[in-house]
């Protein structure tokens, strides 16, 4: 749910997804942050993605918190021992954003205890870079994503973080029958992610970290469902980040749009 492997969206396909994070909050109110995700395969080596974020803090309010534009570029043409993908994201979000799609720098639970009316006054413009490293081995996928974020203010330092995970389909061979509940349609894994401080103050102090098992169900029709409870590993972390999401892939979307444009010429 947080860690990326090196596989990109198929060219011309659009994936529409809704994901949410239900988070517990000490010294504040629990929250439900949701985001809409539009992922498009521009080329076999380039995937672009737009996120629209929002959140509801219980006993407070519901707010739209901004957008993110993400691009992933496959760096090598063929499969290698380790496969690198460059991830570049621009985000324009308010400080009320709570989707916690990644943890970086000195992000801690207390950051999210601020009431929405106050938090939404602050805005973050950030550039985020990740190196997505991933490998498949005997049906297992192992992925590691070091990340660096630069708030677009001259005085703000680079912030660092990580995500790493392993996952595997429940069956490696496809069934002879068409089925939704076959084991190969399910995969399970576990991931860990957290902050590593910033350029001025690197390290693990005042950082938060999570361990999250995850289960995915990928239906032949293009629908996918994912669930992942994330457990905070230290006192700076939310005790629980319950994530779930649903997505639908639309093959041939690019061709449809292209036809619309061509039809008017």
């Amino acid at each position, binding site marked *: 749910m947080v860690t990326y492997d090196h596989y990109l969206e198929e060219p011309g396909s659009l994936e529409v997804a809704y994901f949410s994070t239900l988070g517990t909050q000490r010294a504040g109110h629990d929250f439900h942050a949701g985001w809409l995700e539009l992922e498009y395969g521009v*080329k*076999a080596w380039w995937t672009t993605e737009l996120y*629209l974020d929002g959140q509801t803090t219980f006993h407070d309010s519901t707010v739209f918190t901004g957008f993110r534009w993400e691009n992933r570029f496959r760096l090598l043409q063929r*499969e290698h021992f380790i496969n690198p993908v460059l991830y570049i994201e621009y985000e324009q979000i308010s400080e009320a954003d709570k989707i916690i799609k990644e943890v970086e720098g000195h992000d801690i639970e207390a950051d999210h205890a601020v009431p929405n009316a106050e938090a939404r006054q602050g805005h973050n413009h950030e550039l985020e870079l990740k190196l997505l490293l991933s490998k498949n081995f005997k*049906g297992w996928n192992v992925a590691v994503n070091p990340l660096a974020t630069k708030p677009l203010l001259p005085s703000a330092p680079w912030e660092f973080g990580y995500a790493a995970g392993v996952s595997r389909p429940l069956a490696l*061979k496809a069934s002879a*029958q068409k089925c939704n509940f076959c084991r190969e349609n399910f995969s399970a894994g576990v991931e860990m992610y957290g902050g590593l401080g910033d350029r001025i103050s690197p390290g693990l102090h005042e950082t938060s970290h999570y361990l999250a098992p995850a289960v995915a169900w990928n239906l032949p029709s293009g629908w996918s469902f994912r669930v992942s409870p994330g457990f905070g590993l230290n006192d700076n972390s939310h005790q629980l980040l319950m994530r779930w999401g649903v997505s639908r892939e639309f093959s041939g979307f690019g061709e449809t749009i292209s036809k619309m444009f061509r039809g008017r010429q």
Partner: protein
Amino acid sequence: MKGLFLSLSMLLLGAVVALAQADRSKGRNAGDSRFDYAELSKAPEKARARQNPLAGDETAVAGGRNLFERHCAECHGLSGEGGKKGPSLVVPEVQDATPGTVFWVLTNGVVRRGMPVWSKLPEAQRWQLVSYLKTLKIETPTAAAK
């Protein structure tokens, strides 16, 4: 907030135009020279020599057909006859290639030409796909004309 929505609108507009431009170049058919099957000849000798561990397994063929319909048919056609986005697979270049060669192309894709890498499928499923592909009949000119 007004600036945010303006930025968002511009971003969406840019994205739609970009994807339309990217797909404009895709109006090609199976006879196009972009589908020259050259990638098959790039498979290393060791990869070519690999045997399909599921050869002769009928259930592997059935599973491979399901996988083909799910992942490959959109570009290569339901019967592997090819389409606007992907070449025909019922041609001698593919059918005469060794199972190991087909497996290698599946695994590595042809990224520059739009075919994604399929190593995200477990190895057994890729061999199932090879098993199914090898059951497709080479399309003769007469059969194609019908």
